[in-house]
């Protein structure tokens, strides 16, 4: 099988659950039969700094996504979405948590349009906060991601992984936040 690899870059801040989100993506991909390589940030940067993780599905040797090669950029925060823009390939998909009414900024929007990059965003942070799970922005965004046409994974596939991976005490709320994200409207 020598298909083109699918590259994900996931960006956010330390403490937002980037690693958990990456694991859900990876486990779901493995269950679909993909070969998976990932790269994570640990240590100092996890204390509130920018955190980024790479996930590559397919027959690749290196765990890092090259700038200009990411098919999907998932961002848990607007600024981290911008910061990681250089990773996105032309025709790629940006899927971001949004907190302002001004996302993406006009200067970015022009660049995205020119490169055929589609931009989708929801207020994943607000959604999860309203459900009493402010730490679960990651799951709300993941839910929302499944509603996008290009998503390689379905809502049911992620749901199954989340159910398997969540500790018992968090299972119910995790799925609730995920489902809320999966049924959210974009604007």
């Amino acid at each position, binding site marked *: 099988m020598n298909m083109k690899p699918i590259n994900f870059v996931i960006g956010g801040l330390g403490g937002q659950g980037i690693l958990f989100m990456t694991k859900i993506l990876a486990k779901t991909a493995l269950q679909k039969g993909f070969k998976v390589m990932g790269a994570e940030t640990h*240590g100092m940067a996890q204390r509130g700094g920018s955190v980024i993780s790479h996930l590559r599905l397919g027959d*690749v*040797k290196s765990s890092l996504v*090259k700038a200009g090669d990411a098919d999907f950029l998932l961002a848990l925060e607007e600024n981290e979405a911008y910061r990681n823009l250089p990773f996105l390939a032309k025709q790629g998909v940006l899927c971001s948590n949004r907190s302002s009414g001004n996302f993406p900024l006009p200067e970015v929007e022009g660049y995205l349009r020119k490169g055929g990059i589609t931009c989708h965003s929801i207020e994943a942070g607000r959604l999860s906060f309203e459900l009493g799970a402010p730490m679960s922005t990651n799951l709300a965004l993941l839910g929302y991601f499944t509603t996008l046409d290009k998503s390689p994974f379905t809502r049911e596939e992620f749901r199954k992984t989340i159910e398997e991976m969540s500790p018992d005490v968090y299972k119910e709320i995790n799925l609730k936040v995920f489902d809320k994200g999966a049924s959210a409207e974009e604007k």
Partner: protein
Amino acid sequence: MTEDFLLGNGAIALGLLEAGCQVVTSYPGTPSSEILPEVVRLKKAEKLNTYVEWSTNEKVALDNAFAAAITGKRTACCMKQVGLNVAADSLMSAAYLGTVGGMVIISCDDPGPHSSQTEQDTRLMARLAKVPVLDPATPQEAREMAGIAFNISETFSVPVILRPAIRVCHARQNMKWAALLDRDTKASFKKDPMRWAATPKFRFRLHQELNQKLKDISQHFDSLQPFNSHNLEPEKHYPLGVISGGVPYAVIQDILSDAGRDDIPLLKLGAPYPLPQKLADEFVTACDKVLVVEETDTLIEYLLRDRSKVLGRLSGDVPLEGELIPERIEQIISQVLSGMRLHPLSIKASREAQDIVAGLDLPIRRPTLCPGCPHRSAFYTIRKTRPKAIFTSDIGCYTLGLNLGGVDTCLDMGAAITMASGLYHAHAQDEVQQPIVATIGDSTFYHSGTAGLLSAVYNDARFVLVVLDNQTTAMTGMQPTPGLGVRADGSQGKTIPLERVIKGCGIEFLEVLDPYDIKGMRATLKRAFDYTKAPDGGIAVIIARHPCIIAYRDLAVANRIKVGISDDCIACNHCIDRFECPALFHDPVREKTAIDQALCIGCGVCLEVCPKSAIIEMDIE
């Protein structure tokens, strides 16, 4: 068969146990910290008898592993690259003595650096110590190399270094494995004082033996497939070839295969030292030029005898510092190709995206202490009490006291104390009374605090030492300390309280307090400073004890309150700038400070901080 999506460090743990490694020691440090916990996890799952320990520092870890190895067992010790500096004394000597059972020293590099003081290259330490080194490109390869390393170590009777870089340690890959079995070698130490306690005369002979071993290993490495190999076609000559190893090798494979460039041959050196001379000569001969792309420093390039054809760091084609990320490597290869008037690579990374991002003036996300972190209130109080003091600090989460103006120096493990001592004597010599406050974490104190403290007490230095005791090794992922007494496998060991160690170092002023109590800590700090100035005084030590907010979430904040901002706030930003809690921010609409309730942990320490008493406890609705 078991299957899991393993972290690189988990893959290393798996490789060690597959090879029947019987003893694993470590001191945590990014990016190596997860190796030992993964060994513990696998050992428990597979019911193995492996001995595991968190040693107090890397030298202790290496010595312990070495001792077990000379009884014939297979052993490993794991550390980060700067940890190998701590163990260097032991490494250099162990190389001469050699080993009986296989011994693998795992030293994880951090090109970037992402989480280290330096970008040093462990392969150069291997060269200095004269021990072979393996450099894996992927987690799977790290797993395989861990096994091969034991064979090399036993065949040539020499410790072997495995050097995974951070992109191997913290990469993830799917792995399957069959049941793991205990190796049954019993400890059998054969007395041989001429070797195990060799005097300089015998050391000369051991050095000769070591040099012979290196020659033999170099030949062995010529045919160490697939770790050392090239893809030259017989009789063919190439304008440019690339030599690489480790993580950059994997990146280059992807780049060349994406670009369909099978006109550029690749020599992989997964075992670069001692250099496989024949293999390297063969490759260089077949090319007009060879580009060496290696991480982090210059090893292979120096080892190549005929450097007239070689491009790399010495020729200015490869940057001297920083991580060789894929787009950088692509750029390097492409520029070399252009320079030789060969067809360059087509680069997808867009300058435009970078320019737009640069133009957005995005906030710099510096790492910060967590909301509710006890270090925050300690630093705030220390600085508030003696703003003009020099603040020496150390390696750990609390290096982030930088953000609160509470850290002026950070050199290496234990240097909070030794630098405080050095700074004291430098000023005292001029008859200047310079207040100095040293801050060090509990784990770092156990690691290398005592030698410095003994020396400082003995030489009558005067400073205040605050041991920030959060009862764990927080930065590297909550490993236990001797103060906790819990061992690497979760079993109970002996507890050695900080108080006993500190008193044992000759300290007479020792107070234990909770840094959440800002007023109380201020009062104690003042008495501590007085003591450092008294003629019959000395070094004053304060243990600021409060559990880490991440490790002990519920225990750390027993009474959570809802924090709010009253109308008395004048937006002076004292709390934001000086206390620097991530939950405090300026609300431009209300023109006051506001609380991010999603981040606030409700510790209420900031109530003490506001000069206008405008941070208040709210009713929980």
